[in-house]
């Protein structure tokens, strides 16, 4: 059971741990500067208010004078939503196309295992970075906030992480979809990054304009760490929607992969 997931996940262990450490250290660095900003006499919030709305909204910047607002904007909207989203898309893009291109997949598909099962188990291996990063990151962030004596509410911190899972799964699913459609491994990986980044941009630049609805096709529209951390509002509908879309995308990818020539 899940032999392919295990095999694939084992190859992700080192990269995931390195990434977790890197993100953790970056989080500590960001949190470490917070007291300087909070205690500075400059009116940073007035400065933020003067920024264009798409910029403010795109990076979730509302206030830098509370730890919640600061962490939400500096860490979660950028590093978590954008950077980790791109990472998951890239990882998803690498699930199949590269193995098809190199012929590695032939050895696996020669065994009595169904094609769609191979693809699904490979997709499940993305669970390793999702789980590890969602466990390590809140520890770093919460620990950092305690250390600087501006403690975050651990409940809403965890909520941010739990509710970001469907978003990350969807980014991985976008990668998977490109990975079953495209024939070249690097094209699928770069393509997935490009798609997620363009969707993020589309979401940001349309905010507050007449075509704001256009950005509604971007997954980033449905995840707002600032809302959760700063305003303490928890919306379950949006994450559920992301999750449903992810499932549909994965299913379509599996069906296509089942029937295509390799």
């Amino acid at each position, binding site marked *: 059971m899940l032999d392919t997931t295990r095999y694939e996940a084992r190859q992700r262990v080192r990269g995931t741990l390195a990434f977790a450490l890197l993100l953790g250290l970056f989080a500590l660095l960001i949190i470490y500067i917070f007291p300087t900003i909070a205690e500075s006499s400059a009116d940073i919030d007035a400065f933020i208010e003067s920024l264009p709305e798409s910029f403010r909204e795109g990076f979730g910047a509302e206030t830098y004078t509370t730890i919640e607002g600061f962490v939400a904007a500096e860490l979660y909207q950028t590093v978590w939503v954008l950077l980790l989203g791109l990472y998951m898309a890239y990882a998803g893009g690498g699930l199949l196309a590269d193995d098809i291109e190199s*012929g590695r997949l032939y050895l696996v*598909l020669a065994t009595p295992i169904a094609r769609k099962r191979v693809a699904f188990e490979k997709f499940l291996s993305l669970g390793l970075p999702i789980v590890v990063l969602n466990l390590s990151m809140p520890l770093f962030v919460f620990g950092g906030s305690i250390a600087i004596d501006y403690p975050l509410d651990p409940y809403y911190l965890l909520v941010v992480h739990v509710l970001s899972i469907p978003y990350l799964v969807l980014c991985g699913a976008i990668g998977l979809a490109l990975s079953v459609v495209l024939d070249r491994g690097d094209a699928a990986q770069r393509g997935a990054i490009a798609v997620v980044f363009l969707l993020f941009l589309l979401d940001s630049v349309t905010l507050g304009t007449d075509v704001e609805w256009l950005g509604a096709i971007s997954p980033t529209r449905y995840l707002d760490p600032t809302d959760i951390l700063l305003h303490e509002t928890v919306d379950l509908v949006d994450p559920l929607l992301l999750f449903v879309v992810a499932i549909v995308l994965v299913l379509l990818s599996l069906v296509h992969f089942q029937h295509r020539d390799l």
Partner: protein
Amino acid sequence: MAAIEVQGLTKAYGDTVANDHLDFTIESGEIFGYLGPNGAGKSTTIRQLMGFQAPTEGTARIFGHDVRSDRELRKAKARIGFLPGEPAFTPSVTGAELLDYQAALKGDERREELLDLFTPPLERQIREYSTGNKQMLAIVQAFMHDPDLLIMDEPTSGLDPLKQEAFHGFLREERDRGKTIFFSSHILGEVRRVCDRVGIIRDGKLVTVEHVEELLARGGKQVRVHTDQPLTEADFDVDGIVGFEAEGRQAQFTFTGDYNDLFAALADHHLVDIEIDEPPIEEVFMHFYGGEE
């Protein structure tokens, strides 16, 4: 029951027909060589047999299971060992990890025995492997679950001559144990040494399927003679001389007739040197199948 039945198998990529209405049957317990020059369509047939690519037309059955259905073919796959052409592996895993993974998917009751014969450096990452080591690893994984049918694409490419010979001996032993072996090759000598029957494919079409002895009788030998007087074709009144060419006191031709007649004719001349060799496969095609289309 036949191990493999290929019925009108056709694969087209756009305008290119890689396999054109192939028909042949491979009986259980035989070694069948699938011979053809590079680009003839051998790998395309193998990919369809393994269900990696869907036939444009026609089909094939393995142990009675239709290759067009993944669900059907999977019932046969537990009994198939597969060796792809130029086998590729995840570079960051070790040989042992790769075999463990394959074992989890299909079993490995013969792994240790095979590793006595084929010796890839299991503890090293595959990125450090030579072509020969990769080929040996692929051979071990192909046989380790003791399959009834082996489907192999150019199995000896990359092996050094000693390992090739060991592999050929191993194939004969496997056949004697009742295994069915289907492999592609572009080397006539290899097919001649190990196969019972041969199918020849060229430009996507099956040219002939016959027993190896018949093929060799038709394929003949390439003869080069060096005499002290120049020779012409008229000097030999013997059946079975094809493609006679002479340059000074050297002459060469392909011979498909009775060897005794040839030697009787040669006895009238003073030989300085003689070479009698397997013809390269290209020669076989040129002389015997060139005009058939």
